[in-house]
């Protein structure tokens, strides 16, 4: 290591500048379009429809106020939160055990099962909401939070299985075997040794589940009528609406997602922390 660090200074410094510039540009690439949406949202409807645009928001809340006063907005928001939380819990509880089984055991039908999981993702799943709508009316699940969460879990569970599979595969079997020789059984070894290592990754895949549900439009629009989620509600009302309403709608979709990613950022970083073990 010490031998390498005695390399010439100058190229290394240039490299660092290039590196910093690249990081900055990539950050700007992500934040720039979001900023422009915020400018549009925080401007009056007149400013939004005028030309040329200013690049600084006027902090005028007319567009937002107009949007929030749309009947049913707050109810739709609450529905979205409930559906997404249920989806998150169900997909991890159902998906993670299968991810563990795939990574730890050789069993008959394993490859078939793996292909089945992947095939699930290979189908435009929102379309399955159409036959399910008929099915749900028969079973009384139509237009309920739980019914929609079931469909969203179908969307999210293959992600949960694949991601937990890849995460469990990265934890050496030897760690568990060592725990067994020290008096743990399968379950206690899993809880005491594997779970702490895997928890950040599990959280990350839970984020996927939540976000998949939060952002899903098609199935939500098909399966709910009275209890619309935010996306279905927006889609229904945005179709014919003016520009400033579209932008306010986009803003309201984005803000909770931003807060959510911010709230779980520690777990994302903890997942990164695995690299330093």
């Amino acid at each position, binding site marked *: 290591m010490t031998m390498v660090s005695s390399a010439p200074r100058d190229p290394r410094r240039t490299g660092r500048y290039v590196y910093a510039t690249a990081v900055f540009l*990539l950050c700007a690439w992500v934040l720039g379009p979001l900023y422009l949406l915020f400018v549009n949202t925080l401007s009056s409807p007149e400013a939004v429809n005028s030309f040329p645009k200013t690049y600084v928001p006027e902090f005028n809340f007319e567009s937002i106020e107009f949007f929030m006063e749309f009947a049913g907005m707050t109810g739709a928001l609450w529905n979205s939160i409930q559906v997404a939380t249920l989806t998150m819990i169900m997909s991890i509880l*159902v998906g993670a055990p299968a991810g563990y089984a795939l990574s730890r055991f050789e069993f008959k039908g394993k490859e078939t099962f793996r292909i089945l999981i992947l095939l699930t*993702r290979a189908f435009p799943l929102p379309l399955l909401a*159409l*036959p399910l709508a008929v*099915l749900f009316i028969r079973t009384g699940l139509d237009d309920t939070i739980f019914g929609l969460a079931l469909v969203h879990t179908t969307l999210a569970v293959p992600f949960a299985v694949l991601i937990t599979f890849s*995460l469990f595969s*990265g934890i050496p079997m030897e760690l568990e075997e060592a725990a067994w020789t020290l008096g743990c059984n399968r379950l206690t070894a899993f809880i005491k040794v594997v779970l702490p290592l895997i928890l950040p990754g599990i959280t990350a895949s839970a984020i996927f589940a939540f976000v998949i549900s939060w952002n899903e439009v098609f199935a939500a629009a098909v399966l709910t009528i009275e209890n619309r989620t935010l996306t279905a509600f927006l889609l229904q009302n945005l179709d014919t609406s003016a520009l400033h309403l579209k932008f306010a709608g986009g803003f309201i979709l*984005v803000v909770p997602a931003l807060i959510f990613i911010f709230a779980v950022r520690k777990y*994302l970083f903890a997942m990164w922390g695995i690299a330093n073990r």
Partner: protein
Amino acid sequence: MQARYLPYVLIAPVSVFLGLFFLYPFYLVAQTAFYDGAGWSLKNFQEVTSYWKFPISFKNTLWLAAVVVPIQLALALLMATMVNAMKKGRDLVLYIWTIPLGISDLAAGIIWLAIFEQSGFLNSMMHGLGFIDRPTALISYQNPTLIFVAIALAEIWRATAIMLVILVAGIGLIPREYYEAAQVFGAGRWKQFLRITLPLLRPSLSTALVLRVILAFEVFAVVQALGGTLFPVLMSETYAYQFELLNGSAAAAVALIILGISIASTIVILRVLRVPKGATI
């Protein structure tokens, strides 16, 4: 019971769940697609593929995936290795880079509409720089290339973060010792990336690629928000058949075509990035 039945107990919940909410409705959709009112036939497929819009939407879907996914893969790999080497400010940078993870395709379409619409920011910028006097309609049937670029940019902007997170997690699982050993033997950054990161990242790469490619074939809301009917893709055809033409059988047939190309690409990716049996990190 332990080792023999345990895997089956563990996969049982997913299997039951997918049986009820995936296989069964899938069977219903397939039945609809192959049924023409009197018996089994390919009539629905003939109907959708002979429609003049089909070749265009098929081509658009494949082109979009072929352009967007490789760029996203390269970008995600670059970002993941940069985050991995970062000492200061990595929490903040990783947060910023993963923001699009939470943003829906509908919202992403709206965001890029703010830039590309007629009185939008791109026109304002060109006006400010003196390139144009009056705003021109950027997203119109006269500018098919620009529509494609706008949709591709929105997709790259939105969906690279999904790959990034999977790759960052994957890189984190590669033991540091490998890099230290490589440094001892004098391997540079680039060589380390090619010889250690890439090969050991194969499981994460295949996961990320499969998810991304399949989602690319399902692109819908971004296209609706930005291109509307000007840029038909397979999913928007399905939607039009179902809700505008009220032809559920045709919608099911297009859905099965999307399914076909998704399965084909999944098999290719899994074959190419297969991890040899017995090889572990």
